[in-house]
């Protein structure tokens, strides 16, 4: 069973990202769960979401306390909160940032860090406004590339089915992210 946590800010679409990713896995025949942190979302405030992926039916319906993998939509969070709380060793951390993985000063032991400039890509494809670009689709391309858990084709298809506005551009953004992810 894969357990993944997504970090973002209220209003950024982290919860939708988790849904799209789950959908992509489902299209590959997996059983999935995607859910937000059960709290009150506030514009600007940090928010999280979760994904479970399994080959068989998922009976467990409690929260995820110790994810293996992380997706970080918002680089400014790295300074603001402890994104690695409860993180298990040995997974992937995919971060939206211009920086290279080795430029980041993350206190994690054995996680593999990947970075992708999802913001830059989102701006390029005019996703969201320039003040608040929507990065939640692009970063999934990065996740697909970094982890290899899910095909980029599935991500693209999931985006096309789930994103009502500019589905094509969002799909392109994911592909571009896939191709520009650094590890």
């Amino acid at each position, binding site marked *: 069973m894969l357990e993944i946590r997504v970090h973002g800010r209220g209003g950024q679409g982290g919860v939708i990202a*988790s849904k799209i990713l789950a959908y992509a896995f489902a299209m590959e025949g997996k059983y999935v769960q*995607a859910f937000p942190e*059960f709290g009150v979302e506030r514009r600007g405030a940090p928010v999280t979401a979760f994904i479970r992926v399994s080959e068989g039916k998922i009976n*467990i*319906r409690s929260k995820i306390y110790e994810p293996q993998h992380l997706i970080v939509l918002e680089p400014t969070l790295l300074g603001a909160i402890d994104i690695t709380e409860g993180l298990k060793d040995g997974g992937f951390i995919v971060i939206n940032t211009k920086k290279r993985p080795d430029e980041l000063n993350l206190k994690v032991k054995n996680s593999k860090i990947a970075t992708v400039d999802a913001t830059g890509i989102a701006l390029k494809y005019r996703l969201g406004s320039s003040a608040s670009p929507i990065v939640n689709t692009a970063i999934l391309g990065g996740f697909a590339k970094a982890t290899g858990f899910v095909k980029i084709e599935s991500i693209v298809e999931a985006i096309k089915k789930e994103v009502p506005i500019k589905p094509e551009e969002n799909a392109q953004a994911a592909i571009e992210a896939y191709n520009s992810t650094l590890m």
Partner: protein
Amino acid sequence: MSEQKVIMGNHALSYGAVTSRVQVVAAYPITPQTQVVELLSEMCADGTLDAEFIKVESEHSAMAASIGASAAGARAFTATSSQGLALMHEMLHWAVGARLPIVMGNINRSMAPPWTIWSEQTDSLSQRDTGWLQIYASSNQEVYDSVLIAYKVAENKKVSLPVMIVLDAFFLSHTSENVNLIDQKDADRYLKPYNPEFKLDIKNPHTFGGLTTADWYMELRYKIQKAMEDSIDVIKEAHKEFKDLFGREYGLVETYKCEDADTILVAIATAASTAKEVIDELRKEGKKVGLLRIRFFRPFPFDDVKKNLKNSKKVIVLDRNLSPGNGGIVYQEVKSALYNEPVKPKVYGYIAGLGGRDITVDTIKKLFEDAQKSEPAEVKWMEVKI
């Protein structure tokens, strides 16, 4: 023939309503139910669903509007949670007395004050005396399927009672899962248009609900109880037909490794799903444990409960609710159901998971451990900080 989606429990409800071709929707937003309403209002706006959507000013009115629509002969749907359900309370009684087959989703959320939006079943369980049938779901697929089943049962002339489909806040409502949607044509074979025996009909005018003295009120209540009793068979039939058409199997209760179990956990909703993990683990350790998930809490499935529990030695009831001054509601009713059996297992009751406190594999394991080494008591708390 059927499409798979990854949808949250709330949308499973909405899609269930769409596949059931509901005709009138009246609902009011409340966390954690809002997505039900939002999706339905979108689908009414874009024509996916050919229904009247009444954007009421309160839940009390949501239920009253549903009652009016249903009395006029239309298939009515609504959804709510906690405070909203409580605000409807008088109208919940009304829908029953008027014998209207309304279907409502309720997302379990604990009651204020203090304000909270998290999961707990006191909201719907404290409606247990209103006469609604109650289904507690433990997966989004079940939520979706249950909408169709609910209408099928509710609209059966032997029943003519409203049905509440209950799902845990967040653990289902906001959790997206794989859900197979039923093709509309197939659904239409399962669920026929609503065609009530009596309705508000200008061609055949009747007055409904007029002042009834001690002469006949009691007999009308008797009929409601009778309908509840008769609904057991109607539900079984509806489940059978559902399985025949769509392959998925449901019961009044769900049993998991109960046959030879000496200790059986009784639970409802998502906790019962998580419990399967525990059962599997404990079985691996060689323990003879099983699970009885009560799916229909009303009508209370006396026979299934008795049949499945009577051969066990210990029964552990997990209550994510509290009736202050008595204790756990399921515990109470299970004990009551078993009371007149000749041989009775020991029954342990635990209250856990109130106000959204997570019920994890660990929590459930602790129940088994505690019941192993202690005696039952009226109220036992699990994982409360005292």
